[in-house]
């Protein structure tokens, strides 16, 4: 026992010494003392420090505001139910862990802070006073794990309905509906659900002032509304048509994909990722397979990287074209929507020729892609590349240069880069404020460093700039696709690694070892080595990342899906205050969210 503990300490020390080479971690050790931290090595090499519950708020506050080039963005905040985890040597005892993932754009560095909690005393101080963005993240962690964030202004369920029993991401919560009590929609239940939807201004804290002569109107925008882009509800407090307060309400699209991730095998989870941001197709596969490959130590061939980049950029164009169309539709300009759908159709034809699927191709694989590119793909791509730039010029004229569009979008809901950091805004919305934070450039994944493209940045951070960003990104994506086509390397389309590619079928007939290897890989799926990794990518709407924890099993122990849309919606009340309903519609269109990406 003693020797074990001693060896553990010495191991800790060596890990600590190694970690101190990182200036931030070194600074933290100097400021709070070595004893305050436990360093955990992770596969993605993001410095990961365990901090006690009492120190957590102070450490996070220190990282946010007391150091040079601070960690100004709360990238993610989530929980882990550690109670059934086997492989956690060197980590402090914890039943539930709160994970804070911070990013410093100036340093281009991340840090992960973990706080151990016990089920009997599942409490921690809120950090919503440090980052306004923490508000929804903490509500989500409360909803999913039951972690009580003390001092939180409004700690209520966010994804599940208010009357939900239990906390879904706890290991004891059933995964399937068949494990639960039968669902019967009785009249009483309908009435109860209806009643739960009623707006109670007092309870929501948006009641009118008693010294005002006139009443406010409380308008229920959604869950079914033409411009809500899915099942999404915003409770509005209106003075005439002017918005006094707005409360976004999400969760109508919650399917529990994170829970499903703990059930599916590593491979069979890939199709679920397609359905997260359902307009961005295969690009959703990318952060997942990158993280799994990091955990498994798989290095993919160059051809795979280039194919993935090409397909991802096609998905980006698909998503941005839809955005471009819906933004004009929501402003009442109906024709461009249909032109853009025609263009998307042309692109879908190419994607269909390459992957066999259209909206949800589920085509990337751990360690590669599903098939090689088909014969003659270059002609299809070449035709599209010749066709699209001219169309973009035309859309520029009919949408961006339209006087009414300018009047409706210029100067509306503008915010600064600092606001964006506080609210964890990433993607085109962040770049519209002038920041050049694009992780394709900052931390090139999948070989993006080999491509020549620019990151467009805006000036005003208003809706108009947000649209300009997307239009410009389409042109840049076309450039990247051109380079992919011109420089497509030869080689295999999947990595030669035992965890991803089954042995050749002919050889399985020769010896039993190969047969067993083949059999286990295709029946249970591969066993990914224990560890943690998160490789965020620059998705269409912002930073998308899968924080995967493997416990050395055939499926993930915890799948955390950090999507940009979820956290972007939190900013709606801040963006629309004092504006009119018509502006709110333009703001919603300008955020570019997909409800499946919000609720997961």
């Amino acid at each position, binding site marked *: 026992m003693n020797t074990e503990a001693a060896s553990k300490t010495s191991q800790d020390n060596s890990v600590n010494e190694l970690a101190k080479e990182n200036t931030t971690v070194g600074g933290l050790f100097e400021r709070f003392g070595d004893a305050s931290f436990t360093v955990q090595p992770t596969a993605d090499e993001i410095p990961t420090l365990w901090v006690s519950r009492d120190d957590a708020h102070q450490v996070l506050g220190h990282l946010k505001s007391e150091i040079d080039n601070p960690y100004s963005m709360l990238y993610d905040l989530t929980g882990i139910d550690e109670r059934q985890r086997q492989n956690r040597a060197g980590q402090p005892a914890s039943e539930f862990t709160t994970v804070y993932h911070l990013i410093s754009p100036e340093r281009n560095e991340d840090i992960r802070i973990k706080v151990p909690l016990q089920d009997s005393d599942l409490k921690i101080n809120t950090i919503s006073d440090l980052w306004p963005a923490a508000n929804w993240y903490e509500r989500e962690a409360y909803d999913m794990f039951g972690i009580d964030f003390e001092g939180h202004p409004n700690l209520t369920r966010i994804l599940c309905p208010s009357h939900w029993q239990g906390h879904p991401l706890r290991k004891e919560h059933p995964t399937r509906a068949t494990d639960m009590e039968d669902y019967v929609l009785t009249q009483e239940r309908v009435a109860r659900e209806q009643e739960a939807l009623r707006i109670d201004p007092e309870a929501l804290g948006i009641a009118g002032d008693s010294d005002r002569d006139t009443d406010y109107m409380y308008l229920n925008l959604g869950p079914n509304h033409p411009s809500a882009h899915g099942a999404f509800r915003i409770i509005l407090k209106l003075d005439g048509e002017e918005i006094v307060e707005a409360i976004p309400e999400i969760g109508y699209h919650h399917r529990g994909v994170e829970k499903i991730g703990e059930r599916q095998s590593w491979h069979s989870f890939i199709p679920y990722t397609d359905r997260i941001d359902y307009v961005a197709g295969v690009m959703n596969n990318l952060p997942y397979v990158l993280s799994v490959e990091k955990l498994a130590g798989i290095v993919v061939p160059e051809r795979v990287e280039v194919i993935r980049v090409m397909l991802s950029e096609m998905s980006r164009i698909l998503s941005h074209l839809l955005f471009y169309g819906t933004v004009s*539709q929501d402003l009442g300009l109906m*024709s461009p929507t249909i032109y853009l759908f025609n263009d998307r159709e042309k692109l879908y034809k190419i994607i269909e020729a390459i992957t066999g699927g259209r909206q949800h191709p589920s085509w990337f694989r751990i360690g590669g892609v599903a098939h090689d590119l088909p014969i003659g793909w270059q002609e299809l791509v070449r035709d599209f590349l010749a066709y699209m730039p001219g169309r973009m010029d035309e859309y520029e004229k009919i949408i961006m240069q339209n006087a009414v569009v300018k*009047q409706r979008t210029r100067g509306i809901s503008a915010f600064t880069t600092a606001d964006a950091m506080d609210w964890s805004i990433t993607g085109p919305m962040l770049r519209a404020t002038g920041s050049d934070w694009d992780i394709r450039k900052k931390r090139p994944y999948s070989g993006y460093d080999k491509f020549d493209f620019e990151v467009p940045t805006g000036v005003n951070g208003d809706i108009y700039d947000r649209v300009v960003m997307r239009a410009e990104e389409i042109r840049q994506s076309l450039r990247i696709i051109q380079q992919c086509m011109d420089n497509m390397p030869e080689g295999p389309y999947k990595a030669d690694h035992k965890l991803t590619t089954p042995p050749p079928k002919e050889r399985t007939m020769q010896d039993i070892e190969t047969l067993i290897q083949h059999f286990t890989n295709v029946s249970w799926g591969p066993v990914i080595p224990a560890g943690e990794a998160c490789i965020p990518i620059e998705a269409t709407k912002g930073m998308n990342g899968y924080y995967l924890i493997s416990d050395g099993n055939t499926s993930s122990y915890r799948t955390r899906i950090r999507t940009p849309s979820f956290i972007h919606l939190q900013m709606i009340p801040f963006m629309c205050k004092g504006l009119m309903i018509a502006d709110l519609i333009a703001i919603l269109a300008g955020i570019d969210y997909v409800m499946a990406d919000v609720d997961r």
Partner: protein
Amino acid sequence: MTMEFFINDILYPLLNVVGVLVGAIGFGAVTIWIERRMLGVWQDRLGPNRIGPLGIGQVVADMIKIFFKEDWIPPFSDKVIFVIAPTIIMCVAMISFAVIPITPEIGVADDLNIGLLFFLAMMALGVYSALLGGFASDNKLSLLGTVRAAAQSVGYEVYMGLSLMGVVMLADSFSIRDIVEAQEDMWFVIPQFFGFLVFAIAGMAESHRAPFDIPEAETELAAGFHTEYSGMKFGMFFVGEYVGVVLASLMMAVLFFGGWHGPFLPPLVWIFLKTLFFVLFFILVRSVLPRPRYDQLMAFGWKVMLPLSLANLVITAGIVLAMAD
């Protein structure tokens, strides 16, 4: 004697009335089809093309569908007014056709000496349809749409009337037949170009057509004042809108483009072609313009259109007075 009386005083007026009425509704219904097909052309898609030649049967099919839909009245609505509201828009649009001369022979009460005022009065009554329908629905989105409709109508009716006064001065009559006859040598669009511009925009706003559809504003208010309507009652709002489009187009043709006047072709063909041209113009505008924000639209009305129509009125009056001397 009696036979002549029967033909001249009973059969002929009756044919006239029925002809104008059926013509108006028929044109309105065909406009729905024209709009869907033309929007298809302008938006790189097909539009309805399956039922009948060129898909013209689509209108009939839609009518059948809308007649057989459940006639639902929301339990929380003010039921009597809820039912009356959609009929108003149909009635006033129909009655307005009475004072418009289609050709020298066709026209119901087209020589009414206050014809133009009657037309404006009917237009003003039309807004009650949106007002009552929205209020009776007892729905917040409808209420917002209704408030918008009221504000928009108040603004746009003022200068719709003012824009026509130049025409009245030039023709020296409120009778629409006199106005058409006064255009035999020169269409009023030439001396009254600004009057025409203002009237065209006001006509679009009156019929709640995009980009002036802020009382409906699909992307903002679901369907605005008629959110709660379905079945034939919605159908009346819908057809009423298209009859309104035909009415506004016909008025543009009659007041500014010489009505039935034109070389070679018979008067009925001329008036038809002119009206069709403006109907197409309405549809084209819908397909290319976004919707301004409610307050921007009001500001445009009061700050641009009203001064423009007043200036037009004063200058026309000055010229008419100077010419009279």
